[in-house]
């Protein structure tokens, strides 16, 4: 079984992102970048499938600027066998990313695509579903458990009301939720080995897809800030405030 794992370079989840002073976009100057946390979970799941003998090859792929090579190397250090960078301008839209990934699917013919349910920058939660639509393949989103059984996958999904299990025919697209697994850290020897693994580069303009942006960012602002509250001294005072000041209970 061959697995394709699309990943994304995003701002590290600990960074508090702020708008640029002219409010034209977010300020990403000199901020720490990382692999999107949901993508790390996708890589981990693929690596576990390889370790258990289910998968034979894992290909990491990303759509982004050449700086994204850093995140592909991380994926290689975590256990992916080779990587593909589809070089594009900064921040392509999910629809463009999905179209580019569909082209890679056509070239590689993987049996399974595992990717994060959302990237923590745009919080869009779209790429996996869009890729499924373009390829006319089944989708199993927000996965908390993945079991491969022959030519099908049983996937437990985190939904608002609880858990749902569906069965999808392979090839299929699976998007990861938080509790699918706990990703490992790359070991130093594996980081060294990853430097020697194959990392191919393609240009998005050579894929024969429409890469035009459909949306424009008009402005980026801070959300309304909450005014600082008060510290109460006791449960009695808290109950009094909630009853008589906030009238919330």
């Amino acid at each position, binding site marked *: 079984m061959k697995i394709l794992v699309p990943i994304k370079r995003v701002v590290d989840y600990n960074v508090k992102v702020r708008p640029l002073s002219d409010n034209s976009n977010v300020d990403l100057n000199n901020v720490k970048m990382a692999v999107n946390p949901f993508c790390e979970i996708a890589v981990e799941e693929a690596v576990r499938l390889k370790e258990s003998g289910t998968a034979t090859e894992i290909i990491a792929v990303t759509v982004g600027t050449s700086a994204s090579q850093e995140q592909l190397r991380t994926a290689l250090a975590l256990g992916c066998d080779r990587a593909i960078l589809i070089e594009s301008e900064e921040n392509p839209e999910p629809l463009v990313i999905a179209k580019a990934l569909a082209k890679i699917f056509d070239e590689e013919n993987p049996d399974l695509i595992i990717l994060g349910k959302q990237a923590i920058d745009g919080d869009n939660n779209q790429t996996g579903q869009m890729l499924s639509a373009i390829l006319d393949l089944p*989708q199993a989103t927000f996965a908390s458990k993945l079991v491969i059984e022959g030519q099908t996958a049983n996937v437990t999904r985190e939904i608002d009301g609880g858990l749902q299990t569906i069965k999808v025919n392979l090839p*299929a697209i699976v998007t990861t939720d*938080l509790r699918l697994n706990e990703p490992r850290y790359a070991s130093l020897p594996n980081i060294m080995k990853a430097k020697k693994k194959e990392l191919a580069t393609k240009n998005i303009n050579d894929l024969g897809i429409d890469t035009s942006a459909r949306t424009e960012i008009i402005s980026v602002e801070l*959300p309304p800030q909450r005014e600082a*509250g008060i510290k109460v001294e006791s449960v009695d005072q*808290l109950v009094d405030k909630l009853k008589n000041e906030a009238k919330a209970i």
Partner: protein
Amino acid sequence: MSILVIAEHDNSSIRPSTLNTIAAAKLLGDDIHLFVATNNSELPNSASTIENISKVIASVDDTLEHQLPEALAPMIKEVATSYSHVLAPATTFGKNLMPRASALLDSQQISDISGVIDQDTFKRPIYAGSCIATVKSNDSIKLITVRATAFDPVQLSGGSADVESFDSIVSNDKSEFVSEEIAKSDRPELTAADVIISGGRGMQSGDNFHLLETIADKLGAAVGASRAAVDAGFVPNDYQVGQTGKIVAPNLYIAVGISGAIQHLAGMKDSKVIVAINKDEDAPIFQVADYGLVADLFNALPELADKI
């Protein structure tokens, strides 16, 4: 042009998130149609009483019981061509379905809008709500998911929409429903609750959540949790409030033993009144709390249960 809203429901009733989505649709146009795909032939009729909608487009078929996106997205693609906007709630239902329909229509979806500026321009939170982006869409059919807490719901009754049937049912041989574990509770749902009391890692165990439940039952509140508490196995995933869990905005949110990571704040900081109970006086949760109590929750919660 008319606006199409995709109804979220459980085949027996329309979910409240649909009513918030119709409220957002009202800001885009007056002629709002509701698409109901279900196995229950009675549901479209009961949906026709929702206020502010002029038409219910009903797709009724046994195969639509679980509304899997492999069947539903192509149907939406066919219906959507006569609309300027297609809206669904940004719940796991809408998040799963809408991008698939959007790609079929070659449209770049706008996710999780929290405001409508005009027909083409929307506000939406990005980076876990650290920033609010104003985004303009240039697609001719705009697919949008709606943050329910940002729009006050329309009423379930008072309307009298026509019901029209849509019979181009798409068969799906790619995926099938296997099973579901839906949490049953007598307490209100998190996303619809007026009061929520949530626990974090500081609760130390799932058993200790009974301390929250006692208070929840007195206040008619829902019980939620931070990601840390869900990851630790204290409570199931459907309790999770935050960037990747549920987005809530109750009148009163009580955060207990929750430090207040930005990912949790993203899910609750639009609550009207926030109370934090934490023994760490430097916990970031206190920066958004209207009332903070620095205390050991194992002392404070039983006392609070007695005094409310």
